[in-house]
């Protein structure tokens, strides 16, 4: 199909321009919107089962429904919100714009990746309706419980879950191939690797981590599907002792841990972008952050057995893995110190995106630091599978998925839609989310210290837990208000899409390349010009400069033949 670049990139009919569009910006938005809707769904499911936790004797959910809701909350949030929004949404939208390319390296592959993802989200949503209900074996689906229908009564749900997961990995693999090739090959002239903006670095490291880690789980998922449908004995123990449930845990967590970093790192990239843009100050220690993130990525492959300290492993293994787990806190410590020093001495403009980024940064510190409790294996004997773990990963996930993404949305909304979001609503939403999130998640640490095991549909059966029921009330109340607060964001998002005040090319006066393009950028991003890069990504308030920022490059009109 001949490709002509005109004002609106109108080529082909309506369907190929919007529904099956190959424009990285439209695909980025589609990922973002589907991810946010799944987040809404995950939030609603969370509120439902949290109300069962707070008032168990009112039987809001039967035990099976509670388990399947907890599982679906976990699965949806990690695979159908974090991956699409952070990798699909911001990856697709920001990478080509930030590196001065016209589009992704393989636009058709990119479009295919979104629609495989859409198919996988339909499959996972359908798995609610199949007889036997959705999966109820935890989002980690540990082996004999998940792959044997006798134990949980869930037959179709588990097979659909596995198929949806493999489809989602396939779509993210296609996306990953696209990002790595684009970042490597399609950079503008003069944009060396060390001048890349931090978000692009983080997306690339995330894509590389995902590429290398997803293999074992696709293999594991395939074996589990065979186990489930045909009845082979990979993970199910037979009388003669064949089959090994711990092998599933190994395969899952070998993928699992790099996966949680794949989800965390882009969030930190967004926070870095927003802090430098609103703080009017260059990112302090750019090289240190890049190398420490790469070090964290490499380390994340040798860390996976800290999820299985008490899971029947050979105890010798636990010694090695606990040391690597504690070591991994150092790269992230360097990262957060660098962010802190970036803030010190800048002239900070308190915009709503900055508030979210700051909130995300603070929550990330708490999340990262509480990881030490679980990395030390003797403490993990007591704390494994308790609410302490739940609180820890809610802090680390939340800092990047919710706070990081919404900071990114507030920051790039003018570029996406050409209109600004309402700032006052944004600030109210930021402060509200931060407060009520901490009100919801921080008490869970104390529940964990009290020894409250996770995935309990009611804690009143045990005397040593019954006295902490008030924490459940507090957490459920805070969670309900937190989810309710998101309505402000939805309202603000859709209203300012049409009636927000017009935004010029560079509303936040930031330096990275995407602010040179139109907002919203035309098809092919730079029209009849193409960017050339001269200076680094964060040249803010250089001495002797009239303006307090120096854009990274400038647009040179080039004659484009078609």
């Amino acid at each position, binding site marked *: 199909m001949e490709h002509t670049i005109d004002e609106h990139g109108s080529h082909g009919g309506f369907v190929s321009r919007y529904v099956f569009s190959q424009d990285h910006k439209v695909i980025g938005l589609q990922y973002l919107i589907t991810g946010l809707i799944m987040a809404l769904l995950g939030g609603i499911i969370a509120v439902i089962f949290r109300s069962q936790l707070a008032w168990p004797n009112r039987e809001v959910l039967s035990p099976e429904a509670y388990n399947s809701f907890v599982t679906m909350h976990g699965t949806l949030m990690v695979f159908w919100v974090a991956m699409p929004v952070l990798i699909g949404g911001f990856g697709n939208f920001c990478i080509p714009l930030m590196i001065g390319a016209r589009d992704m390296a393989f636009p058709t592959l990119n479009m295919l990746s979104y629609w495989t993802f859409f198919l996988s989200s339909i499959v996972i949503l359908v798995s609610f309706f199949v007889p036997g209900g959705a999966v109820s074996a935890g989002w980690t689906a540990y082996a004999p419980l998940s792959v044997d229908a006798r134990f949980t009564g869930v037959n179709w749900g588990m097979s659909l879950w596995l198929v949806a997961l493999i489809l989602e990995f396939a779509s993210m693999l296609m996306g990953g191939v696209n990002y790595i090739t684009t970042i490597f090959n399609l950079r503008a002239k003069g944009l060396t690797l060390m001048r890349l903006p931090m978000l692009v670095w983080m997306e690339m490291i995330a894509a590389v981590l995902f590429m*290398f880690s997803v293999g074992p789980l696709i293999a594991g998922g395939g074996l589990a599907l065979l186990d489930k449908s045909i009845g082979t004995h990979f993970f199910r123990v037979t009388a003669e002792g064949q089959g090994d449930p711990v092998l599933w845990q*190994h395969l899952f967590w*070998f993928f699992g841990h790099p996966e949680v970093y794949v989800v965390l790192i882009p969030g930190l990239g967004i926070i870095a972008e927003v802090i430098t843009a609103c703080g009017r100050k260059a990112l302090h220690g750019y090289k240190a952050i890049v190398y420490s993130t790469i070090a964290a990525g490499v380390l994340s492959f*040798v860390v996976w057995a800290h999820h299985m300290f008490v899971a029947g492993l*050979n105890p*010798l*293994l636990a010694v090695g893995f606990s040391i690597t787990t504690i070591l991994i806190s150092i790269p992230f410590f360097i990262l957060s110190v660098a962010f802190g020093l970036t803030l010190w001495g800048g002239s900070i403009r308190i915009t709503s995106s900055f508030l979210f980024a700051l909130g995300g940064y603070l929550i990330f510190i708490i999340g990262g630091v509480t990881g030490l409790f679980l990395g030390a294996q003797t403490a993990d004997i007591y704390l494994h599978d308790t609410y302490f773990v739940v609180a820890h990963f809610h802090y680390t996930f939340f800092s990047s998925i919710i706070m990081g993404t919404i900071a990114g949305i507030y920051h790039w909304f003018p570029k996406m839609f050409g209109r600004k979001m309402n700032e006052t609503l944004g600030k109210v939403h930021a402060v509200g989310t931060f407060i009520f999130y901490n009100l919801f998640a921080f008490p869970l640490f104390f529940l964990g210290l009290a020894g409250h095991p996770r995935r309990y549909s009611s804690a009143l059966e045990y005397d040593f837990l019954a006295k902490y029921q008030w924490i459940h009330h507090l957490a459920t109340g805070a969670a309900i208000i937190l989810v309710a607060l998101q309505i402000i964001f939805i309202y603000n998002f859709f209203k300012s899409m049409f009636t927000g005040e017009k935004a010029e090319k560079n509303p936040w006066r930031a330096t990275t390349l995407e602010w040179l393009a139109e907002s919203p950028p035309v098809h092919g991003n730079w029209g009849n010009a193409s960017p050339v890069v001269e200076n680094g990504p964060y040249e803010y308030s250089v001495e002797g400069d009239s303006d307090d920022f120096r854009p990274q490059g400038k647009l040179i009109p080039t004659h484009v033949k078609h």
Partner: protein
Amino acid sequence: MEDHTEHHPNYVLIWFILVILTIISILIGKYIDNHVLKVTLLFVNAAIKAVLVALNFMHLKFEKVVVISLVVVPLTLFILLIFGLMPDTLSTIKW
């Protein structure tokens, strides 16, 4: 875009070596009984063949570092996965 002058190693010779190696591996499979020795020899043989194919047929010899790292890193991860899981099965090994 024939940008780099692609010099081709002598493919037929490489192919011939590969066939010889395969025959050797079949012989190893038949006549060596000591299990540990057999498996290691087979593995070394397979590794040599894989490297030969990768370097010559897949032109890894003339590639940039980026692509070579794209191959080497997953292999180290594969080795890592095996040795990460090995102590777990040590207690129940039955050859």
